[in-house]
């Protein structure tokens, strides 16, 4: 700063202008940050806030932005819903039924659906790793005849829209007698996750030096050993990214699950949630609580693993 004023003829003036410019910049950044925070968080906050309101409070006009008397009854209703004891609006509270809303009998499906979602996501993750890691290593480090063709092939499968797969999937799954099974979801989710995983991993493996691969092989590793003994231990960040993406994609997937699931045997969380929203008799506060439950796990995962997600997103999306 000081030597700038020396070289600047109107020193004082220049310095003042500089300071003003900096102040303006700070203000713009501050305003931007505030607007962005509100834009992102306001809708979610509203959802969370209304999940803690009672049925009576949630229907007030204008709405209560902050619950007057926060309550956990919506969540309790979800966690205590069981086959034996069907919780309805009547059994839950003595409020005026005219204010609308009751706990649907399907509430008991919510926790099993979460379990189904978890199971499907976990299986899809495992299969992605088993299939994706060797493929990515081959594409990144082996110069073989047909490599470019393979890359293009996987890129193309990456852009097939899921909705274009629905009809053929449905008929195949039906003929295999796999409708309403978790297996049908695991299988079809591979179509929407594997290409992405492969490209996250290819990108990462390409970033590791070729000479490392050569050193391993001269040291006596077969291709397989070079992958397992040298590359796998070094690729943890990309493996984490793959696990996260695959898990979240499966956890959040809706369209395919809508086609192939019918009962609680295979229904995943998004399906049960979607069913609530189309039922006009269900209490809003209850739906919101269910929505919050669906949001919490992925958001926690995203916040904890932010670093891996950002790098993975860039690798996978840019490459495919």
């Amino acid at each position, binding site marked *: 700063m000081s030597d700038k004023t020396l070289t600047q003829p109107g020193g004082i003036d220049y310095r003042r202008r500089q300071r003003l410019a900096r102040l303006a910049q700070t203000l713009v950044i501050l305003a931007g940050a505030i607007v962005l925070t509100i834009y992102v968080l306001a809708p979610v906050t509203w959802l969370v806030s209304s999940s803690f309101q009672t049925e009576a409070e949630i229907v007030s006009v204008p709405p209560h932005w902050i619950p007057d008397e926060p309550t956990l009854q919506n969540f309790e209703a979800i966690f205590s819903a069981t086959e034996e004891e069907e919780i309805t609006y009547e059994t839950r509270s003595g409020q005026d039924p005219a204010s609308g809303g009751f706990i649907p009998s399907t509430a008991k499906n919510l926790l099993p659906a979460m379990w189904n979602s978890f199971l499907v996501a976990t299986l899809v993750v495992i299969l992605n790793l088993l299939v994706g890691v060797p493929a990515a290593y081959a594409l990144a480090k082996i110069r073989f005849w047909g490599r470019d063709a393979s890359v293009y092939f996987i890129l193309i499968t990456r852009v097939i829209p899921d909705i274009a797969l629905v009809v053929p999937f449905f008929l195949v799954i039906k003929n295999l007698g796999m409708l309403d099974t978790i297996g049908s979801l695991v299988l079809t989710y591979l179509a929407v996750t594997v290409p992405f995983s492969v490209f996250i991993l290819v990108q990462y493996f390409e970033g590791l*030096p070729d000479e*490392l691969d*050569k050193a391993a*092989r*001269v040291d006596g590793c077969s*291709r397989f050993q070079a992958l397992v003994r040298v590359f796998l231990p070094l690729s943890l960040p990309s493996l984490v990214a793959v696990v996260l993406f695959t898990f979240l994609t499966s956890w959040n997937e809706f369209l395919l699950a809508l086609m192939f699931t019918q009962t609680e045997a295979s229904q995943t969380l998004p399906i049960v949630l979607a069913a609530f929203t189309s039922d006009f008799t269900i209490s809003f506060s209850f739906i919101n609580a269910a929505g919050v439950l669906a949001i919490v796990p992925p958001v926690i995962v995203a916040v904890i693993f932010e670093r891996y997600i950002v790098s993975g997103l860039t690798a996978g999306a840019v490459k495919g």
Partner: protein
Amino acid sequence: MARIRFENVEKKYANGFHAVKDLNLDIQDKEFLVLLGPSGCGKSTTLNMIAGLEEVSDGRLMFDDMLVNYTPPHKRDVAMVFQSYALYPHKTVYDNIAFGLQMRKAPRDEIDRRVRDAAQKLEIAHLLDRRPSQLSGGQRQRVALGRAMVREPSVFLMDEPLSNLDAALRISMRAEIKELHQAMQTTFVYVTHDQAEALTLADRIVVMRDGVVQQVGSPDDIYERPQNTFVASFLGNPPINYIDGTIEVTDSSTARFVRGDLALTLTEATARKLADCNGREVRLGIRAEDVDETAQGGEGSVIRGKVNSVLPVGSDQFLGFDFYGEELFFRVGKDLSHRLGDDVALSVDLNRLHVFDKDSGKTLIW
């Protein structure tokens, strides 16, 4: 114990790049062979083919009497040191060195003995528990050497192992590598673009350009008797000077090189080789150090010109010298001081002249 033979070996890449053309080379057991050339000349590809890291496109690659064209690297008994060292970042120094032996299922106590032995020799015994990221460049280099050494391979390959080191370290490592070769009694193949490294280390040097071998020979051969202008130019600092001119043959044992005022009398041995070259356009090569400013050169050995530039380099100085519009560089002593524009006369060592065909660049005298 390995003798490596290339028989008409070709390397073409899928993109059409022809990296190595019709390579014929016989590397003797326990020889220290250096592959020398500018980047892209095919020297690293050649090394990688020996290692098995690149497949041979055509021709035969033999280890002793065994065809190894299709043998993957882990089944060849070779060890390699890389320019970037390529140490395994997740392993300790100990495990880095031991890895090759572990992969070959050597007994545990044998591995331990050899690793500690090598570490002792390379003076890195105190670093065995560290990770590569905690080491300096020179230490990493030693670990990389150690990793190759413990394997006691039949062929020891090095791909520009010293180019990431600073100048002083590079010189001392040269000496150590030479000692290592003596101690290990095995075949070394060493790739570099550094002529000084090649001249110090090699038993034989292979000079390559655009995938074609230009000359194979001892460092002396290569430096003193270059087969063509490429080899002559590639070695020597400052590079060799060229003067285009004509040969005038008087009789079977006397001949002159003539260019304008300059007339150099060739030695009898040279003249005999050029006996049927009367009037031929040639390119004369004079190495920068093959002149003497103080000696009283007789007629037929003096080259004159105006000083264009003076570059002192410590031990002596380089004289930039204008000769018919071309800039020649000579290395002269520091005893005489020169100013720009001075006229100088240098006496040329006539025994060390190089004569090349002007068009093909091939030597006419060696």
